[in-house]
């Protein structure tokens, strides 16, 4: 048995890919659920109901998807150019830091001014975090996987220091948390009385903008060329390092927006549990979407639905909500495996 490259990628397979990955992951998780003594039919039903069954559940899923769209886009845009940004978590937190530094009263601006100012500031913060590893990569050839990954820990400790020090809310009863952003900085809710906020609209707009850049803009073309074959891109006269720098600013900025949107749309202040690993989950979201910007929206909603659904299910059925992690992981693994089969086929000899 051996693998043989296919001359072309059949479109039917590309379409069936996410479907079959999902199906395989459902089957695997059903087996796990049976092992824990529950009925897979009931558990999956509860998950779907918990994620999509009611208006409340569906809006909750979209709320959870919002930061994942940002971090998913951040990973997708970087991975396209083969810039392996594993530091979405750090960029998210610095985006949030910029938001609370400027948004808790330092800039007494009206909302129509303050919201875009904070948005840009958060993007700049996130972009700055990725600028350093990218500079080290292009100038000295330092592997960005290592630098971006390790920066996550450095940045989170740095944020912890800020929250115990200069950014600590004096009326926070000693908890390591920042002051709340002022009312003008907060994003409006999309549905009265629910948690879904304007950040979701910004996330969709960002996905559309990236799609446009990818399809039409010179920058999108350059990023793809650099990602596929940097040597040929250099030979053709495409400034590879400049393109990587632009990619880094875009990617870091998008991850920074995740921090901005969580603080101003949902939490109101910055704490160390702002992100339960949105930066890392963004990588999964991007891979599930095959790095396509619009696919990221769909895959972010899927991943969010699995997590929200599993939370609801575990309260009723008593199956641990860790099943969500398994489900997402199995989906990703089967997706990546299936992706290989669109490029290769098995031959029995």
């Amino acid at each position, binding site marked *: 048995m051996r693998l043989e490259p296919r*001359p072309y990628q059949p479109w039917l397979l590309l379409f069936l890919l996410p479907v079959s990955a999902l199906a395989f992951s459902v089957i695997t998780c059903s087996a796990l659920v049976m092992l824990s003594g529950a009925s897979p039919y009931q558990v999956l039903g509860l998950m779907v109901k918990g994620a999509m069954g009611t208006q409340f559940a569906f809006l909750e899923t979209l709320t959870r998807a919002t930061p994942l769209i940002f971090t998913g886009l951040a990973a997708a845009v970087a991975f396209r150019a083969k810039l392996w940004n594993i530091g979405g978590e750090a960029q998210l937190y610095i985006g949030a830091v910029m938001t609370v530094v400027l948004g808790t009263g330092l800039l007494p601006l009206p909302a129509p001014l303050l919201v875009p100012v904070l948005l840009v500031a958060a993007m700049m913060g996130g972009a700055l975090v990725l600028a350093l590893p990218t500079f080290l990569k292009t100038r000295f050839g330092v592997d960005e996987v290592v630098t971006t990954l390790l920066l996550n820990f450095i940045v989170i400790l740095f944020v912890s220091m800020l929250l115990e020090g200069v950014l600590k809310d004096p009326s926070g009863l000693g908890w390591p948390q920042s002051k709340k952003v002022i009312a003008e900085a907060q994003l409006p809710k999309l549905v009265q009385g629910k948690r879904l906020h304007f950040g979701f609209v910004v996330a969709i707009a960002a996905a559309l903008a990236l799609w446009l850049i990818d399809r039409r*803009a*010179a*920058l999108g073309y350059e990023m793809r060329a650099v990602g596929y074959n940097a040597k040929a891109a250099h030979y053709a*006269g495409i400034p590879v390092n400049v393109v990587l720098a632009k990619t880094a600013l875009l990617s870091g900025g998008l991850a920074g927006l995740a921090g901005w949107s969580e603080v101003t749309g949902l939490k109101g202040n910055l704490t160390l549990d702002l992100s339960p690993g949105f930066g890392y989950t963004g990588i999964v979201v991007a891979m599930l979407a095959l790095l396509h910007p619009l696919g990221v929206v769909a895959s972010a909603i899927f991943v969010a639905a699995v997590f929200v659904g599993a939370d609801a299910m575990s309260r009723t059925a008593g199956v641990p909500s860790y099943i969500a992690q398994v489900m997402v992981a199995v989906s990703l693994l089967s997706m990546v495996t299936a992706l290989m089969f669109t490029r290769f086929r098995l031959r029995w000899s």
Partner: protein
Amino acid sequence: MANSTAGERPAVLRLQGISKTFGTLKANDGISLALAGGEILGLLGENGAGKTTLMNILFGHYVADAGSIEIGGKVLPPGEPKAALAAGIGMVHQHFTLAENLTVLDNITLGTESLLRMRSNRAAARVRINQLGNDFGLSINPDAVVSTLSVGERQRVEILKALYREARILILDEPTAVLTPQESAALFETLRRFVDKGLSIIFISHKLNEILAACHRVAILRAGRLVAERSIAGVSRNELAEIMVGRAIPQAKAEPQAVGAAVLSLRAISAGGGRVTLRGINLDVGAGEIVGIAGVSGNGQALLADVVGGVRKPFSGNMLIDGEVVKNVSARAVVARGVARIPEDRHAEGLIGDMSIVENVISESYRGRRFLRLGMIDWGKAKSFAAAIIHDYAVKCPGPDARVRLLSGGNMQKLILGRVMAQTPKLVLANQPTRGLDVGAVVYVHEQLLEARRRGAGILLISEDLDELLALSDRVAVMFRGEMSVPVARDKVNIQELGLMMAGHGLADGTHVDAA
């Protein structure tokens, strides 16, 4: 030298009906071939004709779908390289398989001794290597470290390695690719001594002159089939070429024409990085002139191409294109001044395999007014540009949106030609433009270069193929260890002298020594 009785001697090696299919490609299709004792058999064919597959089957790397191999009357078990070695088959690869940091002795004995033996018998091995060297005229110091040897000497080590393992049938795969003409002639002399001592040789090549010079008999493969066997006596070069390609080949010919002002001038260019450094290169290429650069691979030709192509900044010296100094050397700068660049490696540098034809043809020009408005690419215009190239240059492809990876080497090269020639360039930089192409595509590329010359472009042609250089160039220069000789007009070029310069002799003074 030709030996018409060779075919009547008992065969030492017999291939019967060898067939091998990869997917839909018939790499070998019922090939039957016999090698007589004491014979040098040429195996001639274009790239992809099936020569390498056949030899890999013989050596046990592949298993044939059908057919059998007999050596000295005994059937060779398929798919066992060890059995092939034991039966006395020795292979000398085109790319040497030597450990550079070990001595000649270590390289030759490597793998011939049992791992369990505590002490290797180096003294005996040394005696044997010297003995073999004397017998076959391959003398070499067994204690020299391979990294200090010249390419020709390394090849000797490869051959000694096979002889040390008592090879009776020697297979040489494109052995002259890295040799100067003199070294090649010496190799042929050595091969003749081998067959006098009873060895048999299969000589694989796609170069007709070498087959004629070295072999007794030639077998010609085309598209996986054995199409002809000829005795070298009484066969002509043209006949061989026609059989190999399957049709008559028109030869591109350079008509004499007036040379205009210099379109490219290099003034004391030095550049480097890595093993070779360009040192003080001076060169002028006039309008309507082809200047050929000869040299054994790895003597700075790639660096020269990088500098002229704008991919590498020189650390000193000036480059003038069309009489103007290029201040900030970059790919965009030279392309903007009208340089058409045909890169050495189509896959790594010329094209992006995973992108479409449309995306590839605009890679040098997408920034221009023609395709770009407000940062957005006009894909409609790009697509019609690609369609025009596909039509004008007869690129065989499913369509402009097809991935470039799917194209054959010849069609990739046509695509590159279309991309760079469409702008009516002032200077064409062609680095190994026909490497790995079949004869039809080679002729096409040559015609395109000559057409550009007729239109008045200057052409810098870098090639390791002397025949190609001498057929096309108005003047020829030689590169050796990063230095360049003074270019000589084609009618004054003498192959002997060119070969000497490629080996590093008589380069410093640059004077014309009449060797004849």
